């Protein structure tokens, strides 16, 4: 299978600080990549660059073959993106918001209605379809953001902490949803909930201080240490301790 996401030597500097340092990887169709790392490791920055929001300092990425720098609109068409914190326009209704995203993506008339209805079905939003988003609970807001990312049934999904703020039942639903969609898509989810990686991911990348320190299936990681938690702590703290010594 061809790679739907290709990240090539992606680097982002903020002044003298390098948030993402020469990161390269590819994600194929059928893969669910868990993107792990401590806070501030560069997860969101990498995802923002991949989604075409933040221009990289160097390097590039391709989504379904479309370069994010040379063909940004084509790349974004193939992508469903849930930004960190699932931002939405608070004064809009759930339906209004999803219709807005759908119209920008070129759907109209009956097809637009079908897409919106289907996305709301997948994320169980039908009950609140006419409510202004600002009146919804955190879990619902997150699902509105998720519905927006799924609206156009994109081949590539990039979800920044999709289950943050959801209760255990909703987390389960979202994981089920990701698992169901996995065979036809390339999915990247960032998280710091390690059980989630074992539950839905076929592969895990651990990033610390802007660099990829591990790229392996979760099962392999678990074999290395007694648990994913231990592996995570050893790898991420290890780099920080090491960087602390050299500094």
């Amino acid at each position: 299978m061809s790679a739907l996401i290709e990240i090539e030597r992606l680097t982002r500097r903020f002044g003298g600080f390098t948030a993402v340092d020469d990161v390269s990887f590819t994600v194929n169709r059928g893969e669910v990549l868990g993107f792990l790392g401590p806070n501030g490791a560069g997860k969101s920055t990498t995802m923002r660059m991949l989604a075409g929001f933040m221009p990289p300092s160097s390097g590039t990425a391709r989504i379904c073959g479309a370069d994010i720098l040379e063909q940004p609109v084509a790349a974004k068409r193939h992508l469903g993106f849930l930004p960190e914190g699932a931002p939405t326009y608070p004064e809009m209704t759930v339906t209004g918001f999803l219709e807005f995203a759908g119209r920008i993506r070129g759907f109209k008339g009956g097809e637009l209605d079908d897409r919106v209805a289907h996305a709301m079905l997948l994320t169980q939003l039908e009950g609140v379809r006419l409510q202004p988003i600002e009146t919804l609970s955190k879990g619902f807001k997150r699902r509105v953001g998720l519905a927006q990312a799924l609206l156009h049934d994109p081949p590539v999904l990039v979800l920044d902490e999709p289950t943050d703020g959801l209760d255990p039942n909703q987390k389960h639903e979202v994981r089920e949803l990701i698992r169901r969609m996995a065979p036809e898509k390339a999915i990247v989810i960032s998280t710091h909930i390690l059980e989630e990686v074992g539950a839905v991911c076929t592969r895990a990348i651990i990033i610390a201080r802007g660099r990829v320190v591990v790229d392996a299936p979760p099962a392999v990681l678990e074999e290395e240490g007694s648990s994913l938690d231990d592996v995570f702590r050893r790898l991420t703290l290890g780099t920080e301790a090491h960087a602390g010594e050299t500094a």
Partner: protein
Amino acid sequence: MAPALIVARRELAGYFATPVAYVFIVIFLVLAGALTFTLGNFFGRGQADLQPFFAFVPWLFLFLVPALTMRLWAEERRLGTIELLLTLPLPQWQAVLGKFLAAWVFCGIALLLTFPLVVTVNLLGQPDNGVILSGYLGCLLVAGAYLAVGAAVSAMTKNQVIAFVLAVALCFVFGTAGSPVVTEFLSTRLPILADIARGISVAERFGGFTRGLVAARDLVFFASFIGFFLFLNAVVLDHRKAD
């Protein structure tokens, strides 16, 4: 529908979903009416025209338009929705244009609601409605020019207060650059600058419209003025969107 129009439609609905729209329109109408009838001496002049009204509108826009534009990009940043908007598949300039259009249409609505003034002069006398129409066109163009300046400033800073103050200051410069105070001062010292000041003055161009003159070169001036600041907006946004 072009992406810019979809963005504009969402924005415009957003204005009316919050008190922003109503506060803006009410304040604009109250001030425009009050100034026209009191300071403008609307009745005492004994002339059936809207000159007093047109004299005050650019000054009202000087403060009200930056109040409208200060949140244009700052609010998107605060909510994080800028990340959503700019990762949807639309060229960035379409987002810039869409936001501008929504604000412009909104100013147009506020201007339209001053129609009782037009009705009043038509009841009291026989005004030249062509001049009134071109005056309104001029008002709309001044609003567009100030909006473009304000939108570009709002893309530069996260802070809404800074965006407001800077936009007022810049609009003031463009509004008054052609006034006699400025040009006479400059022409005695730096004559070249006096010409430039007259050249970039929004008020100078607006004056023609209030006299009923719709000149192609004035239209070109406003079009390029607005175009330049929208371009600046897009460039600034591209560099600063993720800050």
